[in-house]
Protein backbone atom coordinates (compact mmCIF):
# COMPACT_ATOMS: atom_id res chain seq x y z
CA UNK A 1 0.00 0.00 0.00
CA UNK A 2 2.70 2.47 1.04
CA UNK A 3 6.03 1.66 -0.54
CA UNK A 4 9.45 3.14 0.04
CA UNK A 5 12.00 2.33 -2.63
CA UNK A 6 15.60 3.33 -1.93
CA UNK A 7 14.46 6.61 -0.46
CA UNK A 8 17.22 9.01 0.49
CA UNK A 9 17.06 12.50 1.90
CA UNK A 10 20.05 14.77 2.13
CA UNK A 11 19.39 18.20 3.57
CA UNK A 12 21.07 21.00 1.65
CA UNK A 13 24.43 21.85 3.14
CA UNK A 14 24.78 18.50 4.84
CA UNK A 15 27.02 15.59 3.86
CA UNK A 16 25.30 12.94 5.93
CA UNK A 17 21.98 11.73 4.57
CA UNK A 18 19.09 12.26 6.99
CA UNK A 19 17.35 9.25 5.49
CA UNK A 20 19.65 6.72 3.95
CA UNK A 21 18.46 4.36 1.24
CA UNK A 22 15.33 3.19 3.01
CA UNK A 23 13.10 0.56 1.41
CA UNK A 24 10.06 -1.10 2.92
CA UNK A 25 6.41 -1.67 2.30
CA UNK A 26 3.40 -1.22 4.54
CA UNK A 27 0.58 -3.59 3.59
CA UNK A 28 -2.97 -2.29 3.38
CA UNK A 29 -4.84 -2.03 6.66
CA UNK A 30 -1.77 -2.34 8.87
CA UNK A 31 -0.21 -0.04 11.41
CA UNK A 32 3.47 0.51 10.78
CA UNK A 33 5.16 2.09 13.77
CA UNK A 34 8.27 4.09 12.97
CA UNK A 35 10.54 4.28 15.95
CA UNK A 36 14.11 5.10 16.86
CA UNK A 37 16.21 7.21 19.17
CA UNK A 38 15.68 10.97 18.94
CA UNK A 39 17.39 12.47 15.93
CA UNK A 40 17.02 9.32 13.86
CA UNK A 41 14.71 11.25 11.50
CA UNK A 42 11.60 9.16 12.07
CA UNK A 43 9.37 12.20 11.71
CA UNK A 44 11.26 13.15 8.56
CA UNK A 45 10.47 9.72 7.16
CA UNK A 46 6.77 10.21 7.83
CA UNK A 47 6.63 13.75 6.51
CA UNK A 48 8.14 12.66 3.21
CA UNK A 49 5.01 10.67 2.47
CA UNK A 50 2.73 13.70 2.21
CA UNK A 51 5.61 15.71 0.81
CA UNK A 52 5.98 18.10 3.68
CA UNK A 53 9.64 17.26 3.16
CA UNK A 54 10.87 16.66 -0.41
CA UNK A 55 13.02 13.61 -0.97
CA UNK A 56 16.43 13.64 -2.63
CA UNK A 57 16.16 10.33 -4.44
CA UNK A 58 14.07 7.18 -4.50
CA UNK A 59 10.35 6.66 -4.84
CA UNK A 60 7.54 6.74 -2.33
CA UNK A 61 4.28 5.41 -3.66
CA UNK A 62 0.79 4.91 -2.32
CA UNK A 63 -1.24 2.20 -4.02
CA UNK A 64 1.40 2.09 -6.71
CA UNK A 65 1.14 5.78 -7.43
CA UNK A 66 4.32 7.79 -7.07
CA UNK A 67 3.51 10.58 -4.63
CA UNK A 68 6.02 12.90 -6.31
CA UNK A 69 3.86 12.82 -9.44
CA UNK A 70 0.59 13.60 -7.67
CA UNK A 71 -0.87 17.05 -7.07
CA UNK A 72 0.53 17.93 -3.66
CA UNK A 73 -2.64 19.54 -2.30
CA UNK A 74 -4.81 16.65 -3.44
CA UNK A 75 -2.32 14.17 -2.05
CA UNK A 76 -2.41 15.78 1.39
CA UNK A 77 -6.19 16.08 1.44
CA UNK A 78 -6.37 12.38 0.77
CA UNK A 79 -4.18 11.47 3.73
CA UNK A 80 -5.28 11.74 7.34
CA UNK A 81 -2.75 13.74 9.30
CA UNK A 82 -2.64 13.75 13.08
CA UNK A 83 0.08 15.33 15.14
CA UNK A 84 0.41 16.05 18.82
CA UNK A 85 -2.50 17.70 20.56
CA UNK A 86 -1.20 21.19 19.76
CA UNK A 87 -2.08 20.56 16.13
CA UNK A 88 -5.69 21.53 16.80
CA UNK A 89 -6.58 25.02 15.64
CA UNK A 90 -7.19 26.92 18.88
CA UNK A 91 -9.33 29.59 17.24
CA UNK A 92 -11.77 27.07 15.86
CA UNK A 93 -14.41 25.05 17.65
CA UNK A 94 -14.21 21.30 17.75
CA UNK A 95 -16.77 21.27 14.96
CA UNK A 96 -14.72 23.57 12.72
CA UNK A 97 -11.56 21.64 13.46
CA UNK A 98 -13.06 18.35 12.38
CA UNK A 99 -14.76 19.99 9.42
CA UNK A 100 -11.50 21.41 8.08
CA UNK A 101 -10.71 18.88 5.38
CA UNK A 102 -14.36 18.16 4.45
CA UNK A 103 -14.73 21.91 3.86
CA UNK A 104 -11.57 22.01 1.76
CA UNK A 105 -13.14 19.24 -0.29
CA UNK A 106 -16.37 21.26 -0.52
CA UNK A 107 -18.71 18.81 1.17
CA UNK A 108 -22.20 20.17 1.71
CA UNK A 109 -23.15 21.35 5.18
CA UNK A 110 -25.51 18.54 6.07
CA UNK A 111 -22.98 15.89 5.23
CA UNK A 112 -20.32 17.67 7.30
CA UNK A 113 -22.63 18.04 10.30
CA UNK A 114 -23.55 14.37 10.18
CA UNK A 115 -19.93 13.34 9.82
CA UNK A 116 -18.80 15.51 12.75
CA UNK A 117 -21.42 13.96 15.01
CA UNK A 118 -20.48 10.50 13.88
CA UNK A 119 -16.80 11.10 14.58
CA UNK A 120 -17.43 12.66 17.98
CA UNK A 121 -19.42 9.61 18.96
CA UNK A 122 -16.62 7.42 17.66
CA UNK A 123 -14.23 9.34 19.91
CA UNK A 124 -16.55 8.73 22.83
CA UNK A 125 -17.44 12.40 23.16
CA UNK A 126 -21.08 13.47 23.37
CA UNK A 127 -21.64 15.66 20.25
CA UNK A 128 -24.13 17.98 21.98
CA UNK A 129 -21.64 18.80 24.70
CA UNK A 130 -18.42 19.02 22.72
CA UNK A 131 -19.44 20.27 19.28
CA UNK A 132 -18.94 23.95 19.98
CA UNK A 133 -16.18 23.80 22.53
CA UNK A 134 -12.79 25.25 21.80
CA UNK A 135 -9.61 23.18 22.08
CA UNK A 136 -8.56 25.07 25.20
CA UNK A 137 -11.75 23.98 26.91
CA UNK A 138 -10.80 20.34 26.47
CA UNK A 139 -8.66 18.09 28.60
CA UNK A 140 -5.50 16.70 27.06
CA UNK A 141 -7.11 13.36 26.37
CA UNK A 142 -10.17 14.92 24.76
CA UNK A 143 -8.05 17.18 22.57
CA UNK A 144 -6.01 14.20 21.49
CA UNK A 145 -9.13 12.26 20.56
CA UNK A 146 -10.33 15.19 18.48
CA UNK A 147 -6.94 15.35 16.80
CA UNK A 148 -7.23 11.72 15.79
CA UNK A 149 -10.81 11.82 14.56
CA UNK A 150 -10.08 15.03 12.67
CA UNK A 151 -7.59 13.00 10.66
CA UNK A 152 -10.33 10.46 10.02
CA UNK A 153 -12.81 13.08 8.86
CA UNK A 154 -12.92 12.24 5.17
CA UNK A 155 -12.29 8.56 5.76
CA UNK A 156 -8.90 8.55 4.04
CA UNK A 157 -7.34 5.14 3.38
CA UNK A 158 -3.94 6.29 4.63
CA UNK A 159 -3.14 8.05 7.89
CA UNK A 160 0.03 9.62 9.18
CA UNK A 161 0.27 9.99 12.93
CA UNK A 162 3.16 11.74 14.63
CA UNK A 163 3.20 10.84 18.31
CA UNK A 164 -0.54 11.38 18.48
CA UNK A 165 -0.63 10.33 22.13
CA UNK A 166 2.64 12.01 23.02
CA UNK A 167 1.40 14.75 25.31
CA UNK A 168 -0.77 12.54 27.48
CA UNK A 169 -0.17 11.05 30.90
CA UNK A 170 0.56 7.29 30.90
CA UNK A 171 -2.82 6.18 32.19
CA UNK A 172 -4.87 8.12 29.68
CA UNK A 173 -2.43 7.15 27.00
CA UNK A 174 -3.20 3.48 27.55
CA UNK A 175 -6.90 4.24 27.34
CA UNK A 176 -6.47 6.20 24.12
CA UNK A 177 -4.31 3.49 22.60
CA UNK A 178 -6.93 0.87 23.40
CA UNK A 179 -9.68 3.04 21.98
CA UNK A 180 -7.67 3.70 18.89
CA UNK A 181 -6.98 0.03 18.32
CA UNK A 182 -10.70 -0.64 18.60
CA UNK A 183 -11.42 2.03 16.02
CA UNK A 184 -8.66 0.72 13.78
CA UNK A 185 -10.12 -2.79 13.96
CA UNK A 186 -13.25 -1.31 12.38
CA UNK A 187 -11.82 1.18 9.89
CA UNK A 188 -8.71 -0.75 8.80
CA UNK A 189 -6.60 2.19 7.73
CA UNK A 190 -3.06 1.93 6.53
CA UNK A 191 -1.19 3.89 9.15
CA UNK A 192 2.29 5.24 9.61
CA UNK A 193 2.64 5.88 13.30
CA UNK A 194 5.69 7.68 14.69
CA UNK A 195 6.63 7.26 18.32
CA UNK A 196 9.68 7.15 20.57
CA UNK A 197 8.01 4.85 23.07
CA UNK A 198 8.89 1.19 22.54
CA UNK A 199 5.91 0.06 24.63
CA UNK A 200 3.59 2.01 22.41
CA UNK A 201 5.31 0.60 19.34
CA UNK A 202 4.90 -2.99 20.52
CA UNK A 203 1.30 -2.41 21.44
CA UNK A 204 0.17 -0.49 18.38
CA UNK A 205 2.28 -1.87 15.59
CA UNK A 206 1.49 -4.65 13.17
CA UNK A 207 4.99 -3.92 11.98
CA UNK A 208 7.76 -1.89 13.50
CA UNK A 209 10.33 0.01 11.49
CA UNK A 210 13.34 0.71 13.67
CA UNK A 211 15.55 3.54 12.46
CA UNK A 212 19.05 4.45 13.48
CA UNK A 213 20.58 7.64 12.10
CA UNK A 214 18.38 7.54 9.02
CA UNK A 215 18.94 3.87 8.23
CA UNK A 216 16.29 1.22 8.53
CA UNK A 217 17.83 -1.29 10.89
CA UNK A 218 14.99 -3.75 11.22
CA UNK A 219 11.51 -3.88 9.79
CA UNK A 220 9.59 -6.64 11.42
CA UNK A 221 6.64 -7.67 13.53
CA UNK A 222 6.87 -6.63 17.20
CA UNK A 223 7.14 -10.31 18.08
CA UNK A 224 10.17 -10.85 15.86
CA UNK A 225 11.79 -7.62 16.96
CA UNK A 226 11.69 -8.85 20.55
CA UNK A 227 12.58 -12.46 19.91
CA UNK A 228 15.01 -12.06 17.04
CA UNK A 229 16.66 -8.66 17.32
CA UNK A 230 18.88 -8.26 14.30
CA UNK A 231 21.87 -6.75 16.06
CA UNK A 232 23.23 -5.16 19.20
CA UNK A 233 21.50 -1.84 18.49
CA UNK A 234 18.07 -3.40 18.19
CA UNK A 235 18.68 -5.45 21.29
CA UNK A 236 19.66 -2.38 23.29
CA UNK A 237 16.84 -0.38 21.90
CA UNK A 238 14.07 -2.79 22.77
CA UNK A 239 15.63 -2.97 26.21
CA UNK A 240 17.04 -5.54 28.61
CA UNK A 241 13.50 -6.35 29.70
CA UNK A 242 12.41 -7.37 26.26
CA UNK A 243 11.29 -10.75 27.54
CA UNK A 244 8.91 -8.92 29.82
CA UNK A 245 7.74 -6.79 26.93
CA UNK A 246 6.54 -9.94 25.24
CA UNK A 247 4.00 -10.13 28.02
CA UNK A 248 2.42 -7.07 26.43
CA UNK A 249 2.21 -8.84 23.17
CA UNK A 250 0.93 -12.25 24.17
CA UNK A 251 -2.64 -12.85 25.18
CA UNK A 252 -3.98 -14.96 27.99
CA UNK A 253 -5.41 -17.32 25.38
CA UNK A 254 -1.89 -17.97 24.06
CA UNK A 255 -0.67 -19.27 27.40
CA UNK A 256 -3.74 -20.71 29.08
CA UNK A 257 -4.50 -24.38 29.37
CA UNK A 258 -7.70 -24.86 27.44
CA UNK A 259 -10.70 -26.83 28.51
CA UNK A 260 -9.61 -27.40 32.09
CA UNK A 261 -11.15 -30.18 34.14
CA UNK A 262 -14.34 -29.09 35.90
CA UNK A 263 -17.65 -30.38 37.22
CA UNK A 264 -21.22 -29.17 37.05
CA UNK A 265 -23.47 -27.70 39.70
CA UNK A 266 -25.84 -30.66 39.68
CA UNK A 267 -23.20 -33.38 39.92
CA UNK A 268 -23.27 -35.62 42.97
CA UNK A 269 -20.79 -34.50 45.57
CA UNK A 270 -19.84 -38.06 46.36
CA UNK A 271 -19.00 -38.94 42.77
CA UNK A 272 -16.96 -35.81 42.31
CA UNK A 273 -15.12 -36.31 45.58
CA UNK A 274 -14.16 -39.78 44.51
CA UNK A 275 -12.98 -38.51 41.19
CA UNK A 276 -10.94 -35.79 42.85
CA UNK A 277 -9.32 -38.26 45.19
CA UNK A 278 -8.30 -40.50 42.30
CA UNK A 279 -6.76 -37.60 40.44
CA UNK A 280 -5.32 -35.99 43.54
CA UNK A 281 -7.21 -32.75 43.01
CA UNK A 282 -7.65 -30.47 45.99
CA UNK A 283 -9.81 -27.97 44.19
CA UNK A 284 -12.14 -28.27 41.24
CA UNK A 285 -13.85 -25.66 39.08
CA UNK A 286 -17.63 -25.71 38.88
CA UNK A 287 -19.79 -24.56 35.96
CA UNK A 288 -23.46 -24.60 35.18
CA UNK A 289 -25.15 -26.30 32.21
CA UNK A 290 -23.99 -23.58 29.84
CA UNK A 291 -20.38 -23.89 30.94
CA UNK A 292 -20.60 -20.63 32.83
CA UNK A 293 -18.17 -20.48 35.71
CA UNK A 294 -19.89 -20.64 39.07
CA UNK A 295 -16.93 -21.08 41.37
CA UNK A 296 -14.92 -23.89 42.85
CA UNK A 297 -15.21 -26.68 45.41
CA UNK A 298 -12.74 -27.89 47.99
CA UNK A 299 -12.07 -31.64 48.32
CA UNK A 300 -12.01 -31.65 52.12
CA UNK A 301 -15.46 -30.11 52.33
CA UNK A 302 -16.81 -32.20 49.51
CA UNK A 303 -15.69 -35.63 50.63
CA UNK A 304 -18.22 -36.09 53.45
CA UNK A 305 -21.07 -34.27 51.79
CA UNK A 306 -24.18 -36.07 50.65
CA UNK A 307 -25.95 -34.07 47.97
CA UNK A 308 -25.14 -31.86 45.05
CA UNK A 309 -21.98 -29.95 44.31
CA UNK A 310 -23.94 -26.71 44.22
CA UNK A 311 -24.36 -26.68 47.98
CA UNK A 312 -20.64 -26.18 48.51
CA UNK A 313 -19.64 -23.93 45.65
CA UNK A 314 -17.55 -20.95 46.59
CA UNK A 315 -17.58 -17.99 44.21
CA UNK A 316 -14.47 -17.12 42.25
CA UNK A 317 -13.89 -13.38 42.19
CA UNK A 318 -10.58 -13.07 40.42
CA UNK A 319 -10.67 -14.03 36.76
CA UNK A 320 -9.05 -12.86 33.54
CA UNK A 321 -10.27 -12.62 29.96
CA UNK A 322 -8.70 -14.63 27.13
CA UNK A 323 -8.18 -11.37 25.18
CA UNK A 324 -6.29 -9.67 27.98
CA UNK A 325 -2.55 -9.49 27.60
CA UNK A 326 -0.29 -11.56 29.81
CA UNK A 327 1.14 -8.54 31.56
CA UNK A 328 -2.25 -7.66 33.02
CA UNK A 329 -2.87 -11.27 33.95
CA UNK A 330 0.50 -11.65 35.62
CA UNK A 331 0.07 -8.40 37.46
CA UNK A 332 -3.26 -9.64 38.77
CA UNK A 333 -1.73 -12.90 39.89
CA UNK A 334 1.10 -11.09 41.64
CA UNK A 335 -1.12 -8.60 43.39
CA UNK A 336 -3.50 -11.27 44.71
CA UNK A 337 -0.64 -13.66 45.35
CA UNK A 338 -2.18 -16.50 43.41
CA UNK A 339 -0.34 -18.97 41.25
CA UNK A 340 -3.28 -19.79 39.08
CA UNK A 341 -6.07 -17.79 37.56
CA UNK A 342 -9.14 -18.78 35.60
CA UNK A 343 -9.94 -17.29 32.21
CA UNK A 344 -13.57 -16.62 31.35
CA UNK A 345 -15.10 -14.82 28.39
CA UNK A 346 -17.50 -11.89 28.51
CA UNK A 347 -20.42 -14.21 29.30
CA UNK A 348 -18.37 -15.71 32.12
CA UNK A 349 -18.03 -18.98 30.21
CA UNK A 350 -15.06 -21.02 31.35
CA UNK A 351 -12.29 -20.80 28.76
CA UNK A 352 -9.11 -21.95 30.42
CA UNK A 353 -6.68 -21.82 33.25
CA UNK A 354 -3.50 -19.84 33.42
CA UNK A 355 -0.77 -20.69 35.86
CA UNK A 356 2.62 -19.12 36.34
CA UNK A 357 4.42 -22.14 34.99
CA UNK A 358 2.65 -22.20 31.60
CA UNK A 359 2.91 -18.44 31.50
CA UNK A 360 6.66 -18.44 31.94
CA UNK A 361 7.19 -21.26 29.51
CA UNK A 362 5.27 -19.43 26.80
CA UNK A 363 7.17 -16.21 27.35
CA UNK A 364 10.46 -18.06 27.47
CA UNK A 365 9.54 -20.03 24.36
CA UNK A 366 11.83 -19.36 21.43
CA UNK A 367 13.59 -16.80 23.51
CA UNK A 368 17.27 -17.11 22.76
CA UNK A 369 18.66 -15.84 26.04
CA UNK A 370 17.51 -18.91 27.89
CA UNK A 371 20.67 -20.43 26.66
CA UNK A 372 22.00 -18.08 24.05
CA UNK A 373 25.73 -18.03 23.50
CA UNK A 374 26.24 -19.35 27.00
CA UNK A 375 24.73 -22.68 26.17
CA UNK A 376 22.64 -24.31 28.80
CA UNK A 377 24.21 -23.95 32.19
CA UNK A 378 23.43 -27.22 33.89
CA UNK A 379 26.35 -27.74 36.16
CA UNK A 380 27.08 -26.13 39.45
CA UNK A 381 30.46 -24.95 40.60
CA UNK A 382 33.11 -22.97 38.79
CA UNK A 383 35.05 -23.69 35.66
CA UNK A 384 38.76 -23.30 36.05
CA UNK A 385 40.79 -22.46 33.02
Amino acid sequence: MITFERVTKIYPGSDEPAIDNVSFEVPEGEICVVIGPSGCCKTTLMRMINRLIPITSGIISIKGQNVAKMDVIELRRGIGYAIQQIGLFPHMTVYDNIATVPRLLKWDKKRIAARVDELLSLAGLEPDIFRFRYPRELSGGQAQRIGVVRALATDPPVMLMDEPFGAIDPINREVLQDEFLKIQAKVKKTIIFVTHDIHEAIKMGDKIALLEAGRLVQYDTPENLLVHPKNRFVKDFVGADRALKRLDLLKVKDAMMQNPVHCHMDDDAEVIAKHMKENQLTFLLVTDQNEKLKGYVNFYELKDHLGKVRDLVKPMTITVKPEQNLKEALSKMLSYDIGIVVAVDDDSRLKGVLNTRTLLSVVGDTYDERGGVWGKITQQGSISS
Partner: protein
Amino acid sequence: MEVWHFITQNRQELMILFGQHAYIVSIAIVIAIFTGVPIGIWINFNKKAAEIVLYIAGIIMTVPSIALFGIMIPILSVFGHGIGSVPAIVALVLYAQLPIIRNTYAALKNVDKNIIDAGVGMGMTRSQVLLKVQLPMALSVIFAGVRVAVVMSIGIGAIAAYIGAGGLGHYIFMGINQTYDAMIKVGAICVAIMAIVVDYIFGIIENRLVSKGLRLS
Protein backbone atom coordinates in the same frame (compact mmCIF):
# COMPACT_ATOMS: atom_id res chain seq x y z
CA MET B 1 -14.38 75.90 36.24
CA GLU B 2 -12.41 78.04 33.90
CA VAL B 3 -12.11 75.09 31.54
CA TRP B 4 -15.83 74.50 31.57
CA HIS B 5 -16.45 78.14 30.89
CA PHE B 6 -14.08 78.01 27.91
CA ILE B 7 -15.82 74.98 26.53
CA THR B 8 -19.30 76.51 26.72
CA GLN B 9 -18.03 79.70 25.19
CA ASN B 10 -16.29 78.02 22.27
CA ARG B 11 -18.48 75.02 21.75
CA GLN B 12 -18.80 75.41 18.02
CA GLU B 13 -15.12 75.98 17.33
CA LEU B 14 -14.25 73.09 19.59
CA MET B 15 -16.53 70.82 17.60
CA ILE B 16 -14.90 71.84 14.35
CA LEU B 17 -11.38 71.27 15.72
CA PHE B 18 -12.46 67.97 17.18
CA GLY B 19 -13.86 66.98 13.81
CA GLN B 20 -10.70 68.00 11.99
CA HIS B 21 -8.60 66.03 14.42
CA ALA B 22 -10.74 62.95 14.05
CA TYR B 23 -10.73 63.33 10.27
CA ILE B 24 -6.94 63.53 9.96
CA VAL B 25 -6.33 60.68 12.34
CA SER B 26 -8.96 58.35 10.92
CA ILE B 27 -7.83 58.84 7.31
CA ALA B 28 -4.24 58.24 8.41
CA ILE B 29 -5.11 55.12 10.39
CA VAL B 30 -7.22 53.62 7.62
CA ILE B 31 -4.37 54.13 5.16
CA ALA B 32 -1.85 52.79 7.69
CA ILE B 33 -3.89 49.63 8.33
CA PHE B 34 -4.49 48.93 4.65
CA THR B 35 -0.82 49.36 3.85
CA GLY B 36 0.77 48.19 7.10
CA VAL B 37 -1.01 44.84 7.42
CA PRO B 38 -0.28 43.71 3.84
CA ILE B 39 3.33 44.84 4.23
CA GLY B 40 3.56 42.90 7.47
CA ILE B 41 2.17 39.80 5.75
CA TRP B 42 4.43 40.21 2.74
CA ILE B 43 7.64 40.54 4.72
CA ASN B 44 6.76 37.27 6.43
CA PHE B 45 7.53 35.50 3.21
CA ASN B 46 10.73 37.44 2.58
CA LYS B 47 13.35 37.65 5.26
CA LYS B 48 15.49 40.20 3.45
CA ALA B 49 12.54 42.51 2.89
CA ALA B 50 11.56 42.09 6.52
CA GLU B 51 14.92 43.36 7.71
CA ILE B 52 14.86 46.36 5.38
CA VAL B 53 11.24 47.33 6.01
CA LEU B 54 11.49 47.06 9.79
CA TYR B 55 14.74 49.01 9.71
CA ILE B 56 13.28 51.87 7.69
CA ALA B 57 10.12 51.97 9.78
CA GLY B 58 12.28 52.04 12.89
CA ILE B 59 14.26 54.99 11.57
CA ILE B 60 11.10 56.93 10.78
CA MET B 61 9.98 56.37 14.37
CA THR B 62 13.17 57.97 15.67
CA VAL B 63 12.57 61.20 13.78
CA PRO B 64 11.02 63.66 16.25
CA SER B 65 7.41 64.05 15.27
CA ILE B 66 7.56 67.77 14.96
CA ALA B 67 10.52 67.42 12.60
CA LEU B 68 8.68 64.86 10.49
CA PHE B 69 5.81 67.27 10.03
CA GLY B 70 8.33 69.92 9.09
CA ILE B 71 10.01 67.70 6.52
CA MET B 72 6.68 67.08 4.85
CA ILE B 73 6.28 70.73 3.92
CA PRO B 74 9.13 71.07 1.37
CA ILE B 75 8.56 67.56 0.01
CA LEU B 76 4.84 67.88 -0.55
CA SER B 77 4.91 71.50 -1.66
CA VAL B 78 6.29 70.10 -4.92
CA PHE B 79 2.82 68.65 -5.45
CA GLY B 80 1.13 71.78 -4.17
CA HIS B 81 0.21 70.37 -0.77
CA GLY B 82 2.93 71.91 1.39
CA ILE B 83 0.68 72.76 4.27
CA GLY B 84 -2.72 71.61 5.47
CA SER B 85 -4.13 68.21 6.10
CA VAL B 86 -2.26 66.30 3.36
CA PRO B 87 1.25 66.54 4.85
CA ALA B 88 -0.23 65.87 8.29
CA ILE B 89 -1.90 62.70 7.08
CA VAL B 90 1.22 61.53 5.26
CA ALA B 91 3.34 62.05 8.37
CA LEU B 92 0.83 60.25 10.58
CA VAL B 93 0.66 57.32 8.17
CA LEU B 94 4.43 56.97 8.30
CA TYR B 95 4.33 56.97 12.08
CA ALA B 96 1.39 54.65 12.51
CA GLN B 97 2.73 52.06 10.12
CA LEU B 98 5.57 50.88 12.32
CA PRO B 99 3.56 49.36 15.15
CA ILE B 100 1.14 47.86 12.65
CA ILE B 101 3.81 46.35 10.40
CA ARG B 102 5.88 45.16 13.32
CA ASN B 103 2.98 43.55 15.15
CA THR B 104 1.60 41.93 12.02
CA TYR B 105 5.02 40.53 11.23
CA ALA B 106 5.70 39.31 14.76
CA ALA B 107 2.19 37.90 15.23
CA LEU B 108 2.38 35.85 12.05
CA LYS B 109 5.90 34.71 12.85
CA ASN B 110 4.82 33.58 16.30
CA VAL B 111 1.93 31.38 15.22
CA ASP B 112 2.83 27.91 16.47
CA LYS B 113 4.75 26.07 13.75
CA ASN B 114 2.96 22.83 14.61
CA ILE B 115 -0.41 24.38 13.95
CA ILE B 116 0.72 25.74 10.59
CA ASP B 117 2.18 22.32 9.88
CA ALA B 118 -1.17 20.71 10.68
CA GLY B 119 -2.87 23.03 8.20
CA VAL B 120 -0.33 22.39 5.46
CA GLY B 121 -0.33 18.67 6.16
CA MET B 122 -4.10 18.50 5.87
CA GLY B 123 -3.88 19.97 2.41
CA MET B 124 -4.44 23.70 2.81
CA THR B 125 -2.91 25.92 0.15
CA ARG B 126 -0.58 28.68 1.24
CA SER B 127 -3.30 31.31 1.08
CA GLN B 128 -5.74 29.07 2.96
CA VAL B 129 -3.19 28.63 5.71
CA LEU B 130 -2.77 32.39 5.84
CA LEU B 131 -6.47 33.22 5.83
CA LYS B 132 -7.85 30.36 7.89
CA VAL B 133 -5.07 29.73 10.34
CA GLN B 134 -2.38 32.37 10.60
CA LEU B 135 -4.40 35.59 10.39
CA PRO B 136 -7.20 34.53 12.77
CA MET B 137 -4.58 33.44 15.27
CA ALA B 138 -2.49 36.57 14.82
CA LEU B 139 -5.47 38.90 14.96
CA SER B 140 -5.23 39.96 18.58
CA VAL B 141 -1.57 40.91 18.33
CA ILE B 142 -2.22 42.76 15.07
CA PHE B 143 -5.03 44.55 16.84
CA ALA B 144 -2.73 45.50 19.67
CA GLY B 145 -0.46 47.14 17.10
CA VAL B 146 -3.39 48.98 15.55
CA ARG B 147 -4.49 50.24 18.94
CA VAL B 148 -1.02 51.54 19.72
CA ALA B 149 -0.96 53.22 16.32
CA VAL B 150 -4.36 54.82 16.87
CA VAL B 151 -3.59 56.21 20.32
CA MET B 152 -0.21 57.43 19.14
CA SER B 153 -1.69 59.09 16.07
CA ILE B 154 -4.30 60.92 18.11
CA GLY B 155 -1.55 62.27 20.33
CA ILE B 156 0.86 63.17 17.57
CA GLY B 157 -2.03 64.47 15.52
CA ALA B 158 -2.06 67.47 17.85
CA ILE B 159 1.18 68.62 16.27
CA ALA B 160 -0.52 68.72 12.89
CA ALA B 161 -1.92 72.08 13.87
CA TYR B 162 1.61 73.39 13.57
CA ILE B 163 1.58 72.92 9.81
CA GLY B 164 -1.89 74.29 9.41
CA ALA B 165 -3.90 71.11 9.46
CA GLY B 166 -6.10 72.24 12.33
CA GLY B 167 -7.34 69.84 14.93
CA LEU B 168 -7.18 70.03 18.69
CA GLY B 169 -3.50 70.90 18.60
CA HIS B 170 -4.63 74.31 17.48
CA TYR B 171 -5.83 75.08 21.03
CA ILE B 172 -2.66 73.78 22.57
CA PHE B 173 -0.34 75.85 20.40
CA MET B 174 -2.57 78.96 20.68
CA GLY B 175 -2.80 78.48 24.41
CA ILE B 176 0.97 78.27 24.73
CA ASN B 177 1.45 81.37 22.62
CA GLN B 178 -1.10 83.33 24.58
CA THR B 179 -0.31 81.74 27.93
CA TYR B 180 -4.00 80.95 28.14
CA ASP B 181 -4.16 78.03 30.58
CA ALA B 182 -7.78 77.02 30.01
CA MET B 183 -7.25 76.82 26.26
CA ILE B 184 -4.26 74.48 26.65
CA LYS B 185 -6.15 72.31 29.08
CA VAL B 186 -9.19 72.02 26.85
CA GLY B 187 -7.03 71.02 23.91
CA ALA B 188 -5.06 68.49 25.92
CA ILE B 189 -8.06 67.00 27.70
CA CYS B 190 -9.99 66.59 24.48
CA VAL B 191 -7.05 64.81 22.84
CA ALA B 192 -6.79 62.50 25.84
CA ILE B 193 -10.51 61.77 25.88
CA MET B 194 -10.52 61.05 22.18
CA ALA B 195 -7.62 58.62 22.60
CA ILE B 196 -9.25 56.79 25.51
CA VAL B 197 -12.64 56.51 23.84
CA VAL B 198 -11.25 55.32 20.51
CA ASP B 199 -9.00 52.80 22.22
CA TYR B 200 -12.00 51.49 24.14
CA ILE B 201 -14.04 51.15 20.96
CA PHE B 202 -11.20 49.29 19.29
CA GLY B 203 -11.07 47.01 22.31
CA ILE B 204 -14.72 46.12 21.79
CA ILE B 205 -14.17 45.50 18.07
CA GLU B 206 -11.17 43.32 18.92
CA ASN B 207 -13.28 41.23 21.28
CA ARG B 208 -15.84 40.74 18.54
CA LEU B 209 -13.35 39.74 15.88
CA VAL B 210 -10.86 37.63 17.80
CA SER B 211 -12.02 34.05 18.27
CA LYS B 212 -13.30 33.14 21.70
CA GLY B 213 -11.09 30.10 21.55
CA LEU B 214 -7.97 32.25 21.70
CA ARG B 215 -9.10 34.33 24.65
CA LEU B 216 -9.50 31.32 26.90
CA SER B 217 -6.51 30.59 29.00
